């Protein structure tokens, strides 16, 4: 995905300034930056989740492949299927585990029959590393799982429609360290099949899971590059200041 | 709390309030409070005792019952005076849009009784239309809206129409030996939907009649009087329910209305005597009085005189 000259406004307040970025395919890109710098806002621009905020306004282009995602001819419903999302707090639907995963394929009419659906559910749960833990209780509510399992269920749900890109907004910040480690492992595996964008507060986490890192500050994309390079040898002074903990 | 307090029947309520209002305007006494509690509820309050918090008068659409009288006595209300104030015609009416349908009491009985004689044998009322009762009547479904069992109007209707008709029908003569069974057979009203209990609000009956021209209603004369443009009182036994016919006693379906006085309060509560005086004055309950205007059918002249004398001297009721 690429963004060009992207400006974003909440009413009169500008939240993003002239963002230009290329998000590499089948890699993990991490967004870091102090609180309120616009990471989540930008992430939500990528699958137009900001559409539902009345006062929000976007300027500039974001392309998925060759397709401008803000092009009126593009259907937002299908865009969201192509660009999945995982949230900060695990938010499984209050339905069974099976139905949670099957929800996406069902509404998009991706499966012709129950067998296909079963397959999709199973393979998604397998890819999310949850299958072994839940295969005997697919009909139990997803809300009954532990926090880490719930988050993996949400990831399974997101990848069940086989999207191109998966966006994750601080997916581990509500989890304990062990669950966090599991999710990080999973992200590492998933990048074989999906382009992944992850927002994180923890620089350690960014360093651990991402191949590329983008540093935001006050709505501006300060620096974007190989994770290795950004953390050891940042081009910008601000990045340097941030990662060494001089502010934030 | 020095006003006169009146409770009791909803039927007498409009008359008592009329008197109360004139009374308040023409005297220096405060306006009496009139509460519509129903005859039974009124009796209970009235007989609760003597003291300025208890009612001074109660209205009744029937005479006081022995048990109520005893209750009064037991509670120290040892002297009450009964005033019969007039009659309330009970009419059998329907919408003006329908054709007139003169009826007899027997026809009404056959239409409404729970059991009727068929070929000399009593059985559940089979009649669905008026025509089945009598060929001269129209081929319309029997549908009568009337007062509920809780009401004094219903009671009077049963006594004056149903029981009288019943006495004339041969099939019931056989039962005469067993008074109880006879009564039961004569007074029970069918409950299969042809008779519709229509609540205490007679205005609603009127509007329901207007909406449904095949239906009949049973209610007090004053409602007919006020809604003459929309509804017609049917001729019963050849007599039309008009003011004069009821006053003369020609129209047979009417009941007496009463007011009871708590004698002990006369001389205790200001204005008691004056109120009785106003109620029993010609200007109020006479044929040209304002109560007649409200729909009260006056007593005959001599009866009025007697009632007034008795009332003014607080003649004690004994039972």
């Amino acid at each position, binding site marked *: 995905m690429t963004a060009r000259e992207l400006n974003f406004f909440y009413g009169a307040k500008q939240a993003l300034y002239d963002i230009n970025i290329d998000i590499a395919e089948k890699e993990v890109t991490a967004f870091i930056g102090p609180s309120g710098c616009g990471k989540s806002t930008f992430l939500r621009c990528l699958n137009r989740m900001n559409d539902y905020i009345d006062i929000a306004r976007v300027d500039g282009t974001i392309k998925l492949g060759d397709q401008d995602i803000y092009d009126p001819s593009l259907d937002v419903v299908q865009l969201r299927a192509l660009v999945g999302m995982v949230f900060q707090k695990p938010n499984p639907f209050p339905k069974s585990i099976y139905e949670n995963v099957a929800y996406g394929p069902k509404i998009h009419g991706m499966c012709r029959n129950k067998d296909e659906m079963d397959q999709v559910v199973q393979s998604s749960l397998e890819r999310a590393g949850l299958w072994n833990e839940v295969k005997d209780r697919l009909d139990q509510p997803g809300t009954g799982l532990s926090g880490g399992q719930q988050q993996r269920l949400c990831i399974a749900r997101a990848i069940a429609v086989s999207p191109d890109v998966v966006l994750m907004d601080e997916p581990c910040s509500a989890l304990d360290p062990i669950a966090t480690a599991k999710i990080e492992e999973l992200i590492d595996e998933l990048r074989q099949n999906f382009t992944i964008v992850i927002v994180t507060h923890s620089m350690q986490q960014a360093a651990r899971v991402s191949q590329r890192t983008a540093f935001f500050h006050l709505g501006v994309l300060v620096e974007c590059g190989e994770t290795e390079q950004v953390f050891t040898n940042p081009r910008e002074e601000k990045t340097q200041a941030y990662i060494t903990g001089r502010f934030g | 709390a020095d006003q006169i307090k009146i409770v009791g029947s909803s039927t007498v309520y409009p008359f008592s309030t009329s008197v109360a209002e004139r009374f308040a305007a*023409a005297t220096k006494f405060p306006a009496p409070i009139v509460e519509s509690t129903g005859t039974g509820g009124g009796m209970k309050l009235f007989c609760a005792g003597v003291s300025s918090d208890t009612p001074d008068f109660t209205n009744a659409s029937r005479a006081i019952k022995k048990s109520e009288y005893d209750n009064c006595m037991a509670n120290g209300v040892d002297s009450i005076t009964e005033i019969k104030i007039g009659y309330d015609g009970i009419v059998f009416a329907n919408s003006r849009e329908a054709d007139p349908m003169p009826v007899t009491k027997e026809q009404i009985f056959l239409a409404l009784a729970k059991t009727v004689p068929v070929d000399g044998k009593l059985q559940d009322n089979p009649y669905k239309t008026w025509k089945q009762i009598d060929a001269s009547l129209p081929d319309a479904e029997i549908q009568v809206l009337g007062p509920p069992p809780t009401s004094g109007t219903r009671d009077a209707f049963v006594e004056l129409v149903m029981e009288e008709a019943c006495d004339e029908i041969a099939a019931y003569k056989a039962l005469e030996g067993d008074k109880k069974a006879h009564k039961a057979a004569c007074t029970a009203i069918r409950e299969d939907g042809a008779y519709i209990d229509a609540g205490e609000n007679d205005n609603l009956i009127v509007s329901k009649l207007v909406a449904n021209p095949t239906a009949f209603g049973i209610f007090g004369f004053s409602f007919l009087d006020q809604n003459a443009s929309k509804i017609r009182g049917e001729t019963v036994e050849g007599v039309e329910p008009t003011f004069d016919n009821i006053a003369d006693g020609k129209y047979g379906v009417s009941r007496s209305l009463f007011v009871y006085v708590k004698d002990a309060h006369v001389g205790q509560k200001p204005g008691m005597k004056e109120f009785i005086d106003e109620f029993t004055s010609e200007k109020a309950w006479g044929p040209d009085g304002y109560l007649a205007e409200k729909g009260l059918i006056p007593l005959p002249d001599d009866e009025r005189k007697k009632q007034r004398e008795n009332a003014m001297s607080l003649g004690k009721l004994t039972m």
Partner: protein
Amino acid sequence: MSEAALHLPTIAEVAKSEAGQRRLRRRYAAERRFKYYGLAGIGLGVLFLAVMLVNIVSTGWTAFLQTYIQIEVTFTPELVDPSGARTEDALRQGDYYTLARDALKQTFPEVTGRSERRQLNALISVGAEHQLRNMVIADPSLIGTTQQVWVLASDDVDMFWKGYIDRDLPEEQRRVPDVQIAMIDTLESRDAIKQEFNWAFFTNADSREPEMAGIAAGVVGSFLTLLVTLILSLPIGVATAIYLEEFAPKNWITDAIEVNINNLAAVPSIIFGLLGLAVFLNFFGLPRSAPLVGGMVLALMTLPTIIIASRAALKSVPPSIREAALGLGASRQQAMLHHVMPLALPGILTGTIIGMAQALGETAPLLMIGMVAFVAEVPGGITDPSTALPVQVFMWAGSAEAAYQEKTSAAIMVLLIFLIMMNAFAIWLRKKFERRW
């Protein structure tokens, strides 16, 4: 990863396929339909409301006008004050009934026959007598003079003049016979009949004569009742809410209280009437028909509303405010009183007003405690016998005289205006003090 998964289509393929596009169109159609259902729901609600309002207003608006007739009155001393004492008491007892009748005779000298005279007398209201009496008492110098006086017409004339009675009907079917119509026509030709704004509707108490009936007693009765309700339910309700929300320990007693309150909010109002009858009237011996008892019953009914609203208001004050105060060494009650209460107050008031509005419209419990009374004088205190506005509506709805129908609707209009005003005030209050934390 299972091998079987390889056959599955990806979302990108599905989206591009013909079937996918068709499906998408169907989904959007469903979306639109669903939205219309929602709109229809609201529309139906609003429609019902509109129908009811139109219904009420169209029958009720004429009650705000009343018909008057001009007659020539000679204040004969023999009738007005036979004793010649000229004291107020003496003047009050004058024979205004005959005075009014004589005046009509004087105005229509051509009417002679007995029954026609009766029709003539029926032109004017009983109120005319009261009016003449009050004139004389106010100004005894009128005695002996002759005056042109506008007096209240009777309800039948009023109904006729307003067009509710069709003059083309056969005579026996209308309340206004031909003779009277002729008289009214005469009056019209002399410009001696007119319609005026019906102030009396707002200043008079109930009356047996529809043309004189007003809502003053009902309004004052409702006001007194609500006053009692407010005085009782606001402090108790707020204290309860504060206790439950801020101080109550979590135990079965608190639980019982909560369940009780929530249950009372949905207990049928008529049951509260039975409670009032049994406890306040029969057990404590409080006076019947009094706003005091009505107010007490309604207060019990309103309590849950106030408690629930107050708790919501208290809950919406962020805990950080409490913590800040506590952290400074305020006691819990001080934190409550100094900081939480002022912030919760708008919410509490909103709940209170809504509770009061409900109480204002309540009828059934008042029937049980004797507030269905004919009250011809505006009540002066909370222990005076009294009625309430909705009960007045109920009583008028059951009266025989056709003219009460428009009065009923008009009283409903007044009641609705009060209710809407109260609700609007509550909404305004909520808007004005709405705070996002």
